[in-house]
């Protein structure tokens, strides 16, 4: 499974971008990512999940997952992103920072 991840915006405006291939991860980390993608029902999410409400400083996420012959991209605003997706977003942010 391959994941391309980008987080931009937020109060601090620090862009975080990272591509991860689970084949290059430890078995535990790979399994965790698979579980998080599955728990998020990632392949059933709409391609764009955005709020039209006004606001400021919210994160903007862009996430592409390739797995099992499928590829899906989701762009999500922070407040609009479903709670089931949040653990995956946090895990990927942390992975990007731990390189």
């Amino acid at each position, binding site marked *: 499974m391959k994941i391309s991840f980008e987080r931009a915006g937020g*109060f601090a405006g620090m862009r975080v971008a990272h591509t991860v291939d689970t084949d290059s991860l430890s*078995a535990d980390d790979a399994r965790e990512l*698979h579980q998080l993608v599955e728990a998020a029902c990632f392949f059933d999410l709409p391609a764009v999940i955005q*709020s*039209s*409400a006004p606001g400021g*400083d*919210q994160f903007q996420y862009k996430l592409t997952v390739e797995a099992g012959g499928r590829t899906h991209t989701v762009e999500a605003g922070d407040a609009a992103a*479903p*709670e089931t997706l949040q653990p995956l977003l946090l895990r990927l942010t942390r992975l990007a920072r731990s390189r």
Partner: protein
Amino acid sequence: MSTDFHPIQCIVPPHMLREIVERGSPAQRDWAIRTLRISEQFRGQRQALTGLPVAAAPTVIGAKHRIIYNAEFGSTLPGKQVRAEGEPPTGDPAVDEAYDGSGVTYDLYQDVYGRNSIDGNGLRLDSTVHYQKGYDNAFWNGQQMVYGDGDEDLPPADRLFNRFTIAIDIIGHELTHGVTQYEAKLIYWDQPGALNESMSDVFGSLVKQIKLGQSANEADWIIGQGLFTARVNGQGIRSMKAPGTAYDDPVLGKDPQPAHMKDYKNVSYDNGGVHINLGIPNHAFYTTAMELGGRAWEKAGRIWYVTLRDKLQDRSDFQAAANFTHQTAGELFGAGSLEQQAVRNGWAAVGITVDGAPPPTQPPKGCVPTALGLTRPPERVK
């Protein structure tokens, strides 16, 4: 490891469907409503569609009125109420900082600029703390302020961010997003978006300065001082005095802000770099305030506030801000006054020359991005 997926039953949760109904495109709304109806029939429930799509309006009353909520590390807003106006400190630093910081911000707007709260009409100030786990952000969602605790879920030695209420200018920054929403309504994209962000930094910094009783030359002009842990090489998130120098860290990278138009960054992410290019108008304000000396909220702050309230419009760019602040300074302090000259010099320092007369407002063309939710950038105008 296998990349196969089990044929799991993925049901989009009702709260998310409601979000899509309220905020999605027409096609997404239709899809979400259909799905909600199906899942309600499936579960024999009726409540998921109840009350849509009317959003609850925050209570409006006529004086300072703060409420602090605790999300208890979840995503549900506003969360559980933990402190209301007039109640004593709770002992939870995030709760009490959110309470005190929104109070000082209210007082700056009320006592110095005669503005009664975010909407000018006593809107209640709602803040939620302890939002999500490991949430290194603070934001304004159109109705309230929201604060994460940084990296509270990591071992202390691995943490980069402290709680986001720790710096009072962050609180002033978020609350000012509300003021901008009610006044200039600057769209959150490209230069208008960077101006929107800069207004939040300007008044956030002034909240800190008035709290500390600092004059312009005593202030550090750092946004978010104290937010980084000792592990990070940086003073804070942004420097209005020297944009681009606030941090330079092996993990977080280097502060990307320009201090001059020649370094303006055309980027596709961050809504066109709204948290990057704000360095330019931030530095124009700093330069103006330093030239005027004394307390920055009294003159430079007043010029910027009146411009935000009365002049700027949703698509105003940096040039319009320069022209309008110059015009406002002339109206408040006199044509050719020292104050008006300081404004001209402030913008000149970042490579923007004030024009004599502000340009007429351009009518919007094409799609009008109204908020964060914009999914396609408007045509870039050079």
